[in-house]
């Protein structure tokens, strides 16, 4: 199958179907509506189940149930809807369920606006659910990568028994780009733990996030943490672009990273050696690689479509080596390459 | 003439609900005009026949219509 021109949301839905998604549970919210709409049209045709839940809360709990019963499942939403899913995500993480959550984010806080934003970085990477838990967060930079990452998300969810979020800004959800969706089947990890009815099993299965004994709960938390450390070791991913000789390192993720690339071209034309470091996994964050990459630069510039949220992880990575600056737009406003160029120049100062 | 109906033309969205509500069939959309907000506004083709029943105004979602009654 060659490239087709597809809307991000639809491509994401199709990628999930190609990955063998057995159940989708979602609720309408702009700018992700085409995900449930596409699913309602095509998922049942390929043997899966589509349910329009009564709310985001119900959706995440349906996903929790279906995953607990051993099915490969997904939900999707946008900013306030993801906020409503936080308790459920914490439950999924606690019960170690493989679920995929697509977040197509828009401006906030509150009802905010519906235009693209990256103001949900904290929401995705630090959760808001209770307790010590982590979900893997993947951040695509366009429609093609979004579909690849959705497929990858199902693999990761399965093999680590962990919720995986694919977080994209509203641009990716709404735009059309040429895309080729991989159709290779993804084998399912055996889920002997699933609650499907005991059948011929010798014991009953139980899916649960409660541990009343504190020592048991502590052990459980340590287990979750060890799993996370394992994931950090194996699955951290990023892209470096013209970093080798860079004197200025720009860090960006998602669609804005493409704007930064174009700014970097302009900067290089003007003789300023800039490079891009783009985390592809926001959790686990590529701390070590970014630390390395920042060693030889004058400063790091973090660019986000927010008031500055990822900058915290960048600072943690850089750990005081060089100054870390910030440039951001928010509320649905998207920066132009020239703004990045200007920001870099202003920090280079009298040079 | 028992009544008079007038329209705030530039807020009319040309939906036609008033047209279909009028028992005297004296309202129509003016296809020859496009108002400021891009629609063909409604108008009265025969004021004389208006009975000031207010049906049109009741059905107008955009409060475009004022109806007056002849005081006798």
């Amino acid at each position, binding site marked *: 199958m060659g490239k087709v*021109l597809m809307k991000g949301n639809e491509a994401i839905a199709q990628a999930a179907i190609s990955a063998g998604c057995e159940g989708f549970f979602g609720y309408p919210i702009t700018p992700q509506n085409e995900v449930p709409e596409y699913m309602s049209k095509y998922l049942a045709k390929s043997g899966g189940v589509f349910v329009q839940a009564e709310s985001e809360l119900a959706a995440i709990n349906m996903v929790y149930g279906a995953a607990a019963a051993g099915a490969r499942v997904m939900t999707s939403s946008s900013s306030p809807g993801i906020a409503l899913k936080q308790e459920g995500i914490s439950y999924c993480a606690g019960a170690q369920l493989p679920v995929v959550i697509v977040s197509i984010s828009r401006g906030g806080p509150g009802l905010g606006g*519906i235009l693209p934003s990256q103001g949900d970085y904290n929401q995705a990477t630090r959760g808001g659910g209770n307790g010590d838990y982590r979900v893997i967060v993947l951040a695509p930079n366009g429609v093609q990568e979004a579909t690849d990452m959705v497929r990858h998300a199902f693999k990761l969810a399965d093999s680590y028994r962990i919720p995986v979020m694919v977080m994209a800004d509203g641009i990716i959800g*709404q*735009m*059309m780009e040429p895309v080729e969706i991989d159709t290779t089947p993804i084998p399912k990890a055996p889920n002997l733990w699933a609650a499907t009815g005991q059948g011929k099993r010798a014991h009953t299965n139980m899916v649960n996030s409660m541990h009343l004994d504190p020592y048991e709960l502590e052990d459980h938390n340590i287990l979750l943490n060890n799993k996370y450390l394992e994931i950090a070791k194996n699955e951290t991913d990023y892209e470096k672009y013209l970093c080798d000789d860079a004197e200025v390192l720009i860090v960006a993720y998602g669609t804005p990273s493409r704007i930064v690339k174009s700014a970097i071209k302009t900067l290089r034309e003007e003789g300023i050696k800039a490079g891009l470091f783009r985390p592809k996994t926001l959790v686990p964050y590529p701390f070590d690689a970014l630390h390395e990459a920042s060693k030889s630069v004058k400063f790091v510039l973090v660019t986000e479509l927010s008031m500055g949220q990822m900058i915290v992880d960048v600072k943690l990575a850089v750990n005081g080596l060089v100054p870390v600056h910030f440039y951001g737009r928010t509320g649905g406003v*998207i920066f132009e390459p020239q703004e990045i160029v200007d920001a870099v120049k202003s920090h280079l100062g009298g040079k | 003439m028992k009544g008079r109906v007038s329209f705030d033309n530039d807020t009319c969205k040309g939906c036609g609900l008033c047209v279909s509500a009028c028992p005297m069939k004296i309202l129509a959309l003016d296809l020859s005009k496009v108002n400021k907000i*891009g629609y063909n506004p409604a108008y009265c083709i025969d004021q004389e026949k208006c009975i000031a029943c207010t049906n049109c105004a009741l059905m107008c979602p955009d409060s475009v219509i004022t109806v007056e009654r002849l005081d006798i």
Partner: protein
Amino acid sequence: MKTVKMVCAGFGGQGVLSMGQMVALMAMKKGFNTSWMPSYGPEMRGGTANCQVVIDEAEIASPIVSEGITLLLAMNQMALTKFQPKLEKGAWLIVNSALVDTKDVPSDVHILKADFNAIAQEVGNPKVQNMAALGTLAAHMDIFNKQDGLDIIEEKFGKKNPELTLLNQKAFEKAYDIS
């Protein structure tokens, strides 16, 4: 090649979104990188719509065209009023002369006009005005030729409705030929 940053704008029923999609589709077929981005959300209500198409040899930086429009298709006056301030110098402007008055457009903008309504009327269906616009656009842009347009129309409508395909192709061709 200079990056094409195009905006198509008009009333809801004028088919600007699908017209933009077909431009992107043609670009893709020709091996370019391309993106299409609609306006979305409540502002869609009230009947105006627009989309943004970017075409480039390099990777698309931003699919959002907020400034430096190189090509504007304005299917009504509101569209022109809204996007004219964002045209870059030397930009191309394609307008539906039936509905749009270009007297206030600065002289550094190249204007291509045609009466898409009339063409559509001639062909026999007012709905195909967007394909007439596509014709004018294809005639203007170096990267496309007439066959590209005819093919894309075929591809888009062919299976479902051969009659519609023909109608659309006719409108396209008419506009292409007079441009």
